[in-house]
């Protein structure tokens, strides 16, 4: 009979407000973990926007330079010409690159790309994708933060450039991407006679991996597939942030254990008389522990659902308030959170277990 009664569920749902508070508490603690991981996931996906969308299967850079984020690369034009003339290369487009700060209502970090044929913006919201001399294409979110629009001017390296286009998909919490004409870049930054990177397309049917290996062997350059380049970009961001993210996630885990432990303990202690009755009619301690463990799992499981719902709401709210933050929840993070939830539930269930074990069956008959 005892086994047929869903004690854990009934214990929890009898006092709905308490259960709601417990689930909300666990949900918020898990949200600390999930939100952080989702923001971090968003950053990792956005930081590779340029290599992912520039369209070139192979990216060539100065020897020893494997990234764009917080990096600098310089290739002599003679090397660029040799790469372009290589029989395995179908097309090669040099680009110039510098990390800059766009200044307006608020400052915005940006990768400034100077391009001629290839490597420009991939999705336009307004205006032209190809900026004229003294023109610039910036991201639409960056424009919002700067408080500028088409036709306005931005001061870059001493020259006022007119905004001639607004792009999409070129903004992240770390940096945006802005585009100017190649020769304008040369004039602004004094980089005539060099390129920062070369975007390279292999001949039809040839593999990007083989071309990258060939170029690296034949010329004094570093050549990578765009996927490899993106992987290195992610490594840079991970290397900078992993310890910080792990530290905050650990705090979220501790908070989760405390909140779940508190709520399970409170719910259990409130039912000590009922547990005494169950013991008096023959229920074993082990079965009682099982009930408490189920209670804990139900609470943290509901907490996880609450956290996911809150994450969805947060994602929508952040999209409205701070569009630079994009949240990406990966299956790995979900799995990690589910494991964390299970661990939190198991630890939380231990707290009231001793109290229940010490309950005397006779206490059920005392007033």
């Amino acid at each position, binding site marked *: 009979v005892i086994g047929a009664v869903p004690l854990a569920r009934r214990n929890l749902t009898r006092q709905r407000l308490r259960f709601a508070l417990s689930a909300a508490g666990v949900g918020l603690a898990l949200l600390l973990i999930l939100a952080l991981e989702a923001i971090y996931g968003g950053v990792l996906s956005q930081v590779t926007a340029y290599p992912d969308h520039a369209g070139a299967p192979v990216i060539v850079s100065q020897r020893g330079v494997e990234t764009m984020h917080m990096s600098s690369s310089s290739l002599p034009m003679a090397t660029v010409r040799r790469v372009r003339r290589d029989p395995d290369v179908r097309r090669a487009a040099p680009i110039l690159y510098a990390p800059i700060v766009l200044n307006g209502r608020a400052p*915005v970090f940006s990768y400034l790309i100077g391009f001629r044929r290839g490597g420009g913006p991939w999705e336009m919201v307004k205006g032209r994708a190809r900026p004229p001399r003294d023109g610039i294409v910036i991201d639409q979110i960056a424009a919002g933060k700067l408080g500028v629009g088409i036709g306005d001017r931005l001061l870059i390296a001493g020259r006022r450039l007119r905004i001639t286009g607004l792009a999409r998909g070129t903004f992240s919490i770390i940096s945006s991407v802005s585009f100017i004409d190649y020769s304008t870049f040369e004039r602004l930054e004094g980089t005539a006679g060099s390129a920062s990177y070369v975007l390279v397309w292999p001949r039809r049917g040839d593999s990007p991996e083989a071309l990258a290996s060939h170029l690296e062997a034949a010329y004094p350059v570093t050549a990578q597939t765009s996927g490899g380049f993106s992987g290195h970009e992610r490594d*840079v961001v991970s290397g900078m942030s992993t310890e910080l993210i792990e530290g905050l996630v650990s705090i979220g885990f501790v908070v989760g254990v405390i909140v779940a432990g508190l709520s399970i303990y409170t719910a259990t202690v409130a039912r000590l008389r009922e547990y005494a009755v169950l013991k008096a009619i023959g229920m074993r301690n082990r079965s009682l522990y099982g009930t408490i463990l189920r209670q804990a799992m139900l609470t943290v499981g509901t907490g996880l659902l609450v956290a996911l719902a809150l994450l969805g709401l947060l994602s929508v709210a952040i999209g409205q308030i701070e569009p630079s933050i994009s949240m990406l929840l990966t299956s790995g993070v979900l799995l990690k959170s589910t494991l964390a939830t299970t661990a939190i539930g198991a630890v939380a269930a231990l707290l009231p277990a001793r109290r229940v074990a010490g309950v005397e069956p006779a206490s059920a008959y005392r007033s």
Partner: protein
Amino acid sequence: VPLARRQLLREPLKLTLALLGVTVSVALVGLLFGLREGIGRQTTTYPDHAGADVYVGSGGTRNFLSASSSSLPVSLAPRLRRVPGVTEAEPLTAWFDVVPMHGMKVVVEHIGYEPGRLGGPWSMLEGRPPARANEVAIDRVMSDQHGLGIGDRMELQGRSLRVVGLTDQTASWMAPIVFTTRETAAAAWGRPRAATFFLVRSKNGVPPGVLRNRLAKDFPRLSVLSRDQIAHDDRVLMASSFDSTLLVMVLTALGVGAVVIGITVYGFVSERRREFGTLKAMGARNHRLYRLVSLQALAIALTGLAGGIVVQRLTGHAIEALSPKFLFVYLPSHLELMVAAAFAMAMLGAIAPVRVLARLDPAEVFRR
């Protein structure tokens, strides 16, 4: 009868858990603010210590963080030195770089300065500042973290550099500072005749503000910034990347603390419905009962606040000891924010139990 205190102390484990929950939440809020300030300080390490009063860059430049987008001819130096009030004007080539190290990618802030002149390392722990091409002085925390010592070699932009010195006060969570000669830096940057900034020092008796204005007037097409301006703009830029995430974390921690208080005080109220019902039946007004639960919530919040401040400091010190690249800086305003957070947790946490009390029927005491 001290009802609030007695109820709180009757369940020590529950009270301990509640205090732990609030303590951790408050500590998290404090740590996040401390970390934000620490990141801000680390961001401006170079302008704060380099000894220059004024920074001259390309027109439109406002940040040292974006140094590599500023490009000026080295030949500008004599013209700057001729401006009255200038005692030193030295070219500097600076940018961020990614250094491959045992399979990791480490971001560094690469400073190329003229040996023996303004802009070099300000505190040497061991060895000497770089004086020749292909020599490098690295931050001591970076040296510990990556097992690099004097005489070792590190790769920078495809060049092999020999470590000749370890510097102090140059650590950073984001990018530790490494120093080379300007010649080495400019060659790696691919612009041997260009500098990213000129560092200018004023003569004794010439206020830096006056010198800045004088330089701005003489070089209207360039960006002339005081040390405080460039440091301020860098902090604003860095904060713009972090603040939204920080706000999400702080609000969530606040919510957790409020829920912890809510669960605890709600537990006290719901387990003693009969007692509260008796008090109501004896004529106790609702507002007195509300005060009782609010006091309980406040007591938990304030004790949690005290614990949170202690945990915040201890955790901050522990993190700094284990990973010295992190810096936590606590300001009086952070304490104010933590007090405000604790009060907010108490008030939000009291809502659920107050609702229960408001609906409590005095007749309940006579049932059963």
